[in-house]
């Protein structure tokens, strides 16, 4: 009997719940694997998928979103060894799993903490409620590959946003593997979309795209590029989160800042009965 030939894996994009190759057909060699090299059109397709997912995801109950994020943690826990084999330290996988659980808990608490009844001088009930911004483009931090990625995706989607993430070009394998976790976690297709490849190619498209409502520049290290992206984002007044310093400690308590930065407050005035 002949020797078995191993199945070699091509790491693909994650768009609309599916794993397509780049529309351009290109790939690049990184971490000893072939990874899709996303093009501008892939970025556009990802935004279309993310936009289509906004209604269902933001309309789901906070409780349901929390359950799904917790389910992501469950699936991630089960795949711990796979991430370790990709070179992600075991501690980091554990920290990333815990972070999903931490954000899952916030899903139905954030509106209570950041919304509420406002005292007004008139015969009205005045209520404020935080609502998701919409489609968020995210540039993942270069390191830590997994914890950094989870720390930017989870706070964006827990409140009902959908995201298009540009993975770290140097370490995309953990990101694509996380996408495989997300695909098996009951997360609706299109809530998280992942582009691998060059930041300079896809992110300017996302920054200028009029159907993107916010951009998180966490992983942008080039100051000139960051400035250019902010200028592009200004065209339709996107919310912009500035780049995170390289020495940032991602294991520390993340706080609620990343969640609240991607919310809009809706305030309703309702007449009181006489």
């Amino acid at each position, binding site marked *: 009997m002949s020797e078995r030939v191993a199945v070699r894996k091509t790491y693909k994009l994650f768009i609309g719940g599916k794993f397509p190759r780049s529309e351009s057909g290109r790939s690049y060699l990184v971490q000893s694997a072939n990874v899709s090299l996303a093009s501008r059109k892939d970025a556009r397709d990802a*935004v279309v998928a993310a*936009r289509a997912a906004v209604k269902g995801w933001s309309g789901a109950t906070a409780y349901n979103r929390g359950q799904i994020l917790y389910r992501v943690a469950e699936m991630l826990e089960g795949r711990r060894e796979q991430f370790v084999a990709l070179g992600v330290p075991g501690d980091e996988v554990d920290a990333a799993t815990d972070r999903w659980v931490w954000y899952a808990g916030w899903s139905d608490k954030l509106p209570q903490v950041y919304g509420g009844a406002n005292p007004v001088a008139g015969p009205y009930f005045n209520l404020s409620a935080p609502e998701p911004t919409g489609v968020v483009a995210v540039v993942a931090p270069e390191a830590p590959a997994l914890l950094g990625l989870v720390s930017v995706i989870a706070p964006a989607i827990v409140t009902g946003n959908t995201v298009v993430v540009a993975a770290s070009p140097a370490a995309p394998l953990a990101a694509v593997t996380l996408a495989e976790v997300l695909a098996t976690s009951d997360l609706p297709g299109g809530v998280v979309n992942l582009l691998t490849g060059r930041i300079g190619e896809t992110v300017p*498209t996302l920054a*200028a*795209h*009029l*159907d*993107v409502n916010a951009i998180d520049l966490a992983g942008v290290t080039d100051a000139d590029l960051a400035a250019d992206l902010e200028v592009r984002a200004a*065209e339709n007044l996107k919310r912009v989160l500035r780049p995170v310093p390289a020495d940032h400690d991602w294991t520390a308590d993340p706080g609620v800042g990343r969640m609240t930065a991607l919310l809009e407050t809706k305030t309703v005035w309702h007449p009181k009965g006489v």
Partner: protein
Amino acid sequence: MTATTTSARSDLAELGRSETALRTFLHGLPGVDQIGADQRAAQLGTRSIKTTAKAQAIDLAIRMVDLTTLEGADTPGKVRALAAKALRPDPADPSCPHVGAVCVYPAMVPYVAEVLRGSPVHLASVATAFPSGQAPLEIKLADTRAAVAAGADEIDMVINRGAFLAGRYQEVYDEIVATKEACGAAHLKVILETGELVTYDNVRRASWLAMLAGGDFIKTSTGKVPVAATLPVTLVMLEAVRDFRAATGRQVGVKPAGGIKTTKDAIKYLVMVNETVGADWLDPDWFRFGASSLLNDLLMQRTKLTTGTYSGPDYFTLD
């Protein structure tokens, strides 16, 4: 050549006089190779149209759109807004062309006519008990006359599919002739509802029947049944109008309708028109898209080409 064409013309004109002659002719049309048609359509769909060619295709497609609303919930306000959009699809860009026509129910025609008066945009109305066509002939004709009287200059009629599928070709033929007469000067588009005709052979027969009876356009679908316009069906119809012109010298237009939602789809159709019947049909007078959501996608793609940034649905009106 001229002699045979002339005799062919007179032969074709005779066909409508007897059910037997019609049946013999329609069933004598060569059968459609279904696999071949599907493959040909799929192959033409792979052409890559980019940059300036794409810009031209988008502008042409916009000019070919029959901007349609056929809902029970249509109101005078909604159709007025739609008509205004037909005149200026992209208010932010004066270089954007107007669409081909607005297509509404007969009751909404007067409101659209107010807005379109004096403009080059045509006003189409569905008639003849759209979408089923299951009503007595007098009612269908009255429906048509009312739409024309209200200001429609194009009538989209449905054929009697029940009669067609039962093989009563004469009845279908006579209804189209009568409707054409009721249209007067208005153009008549004949909806075959290909989704209900089941086979490509039937599509070819219905196309010929509609053209023989005097239809100015043949249209795929009402948009009210699950299977609407497809590329292969449109290919069969394009071949029919090509052969009909070769046989009679009269040019008939084609209108795929329903299910065409993206610029990519529209460009596939334009490629197919060019490759099947040639540039003579690449004109809003001879080819139209029956669509509602297609226009916004065309406008978004157009904006991408002119500004370089992708636009979003937030920047265009919903209806």
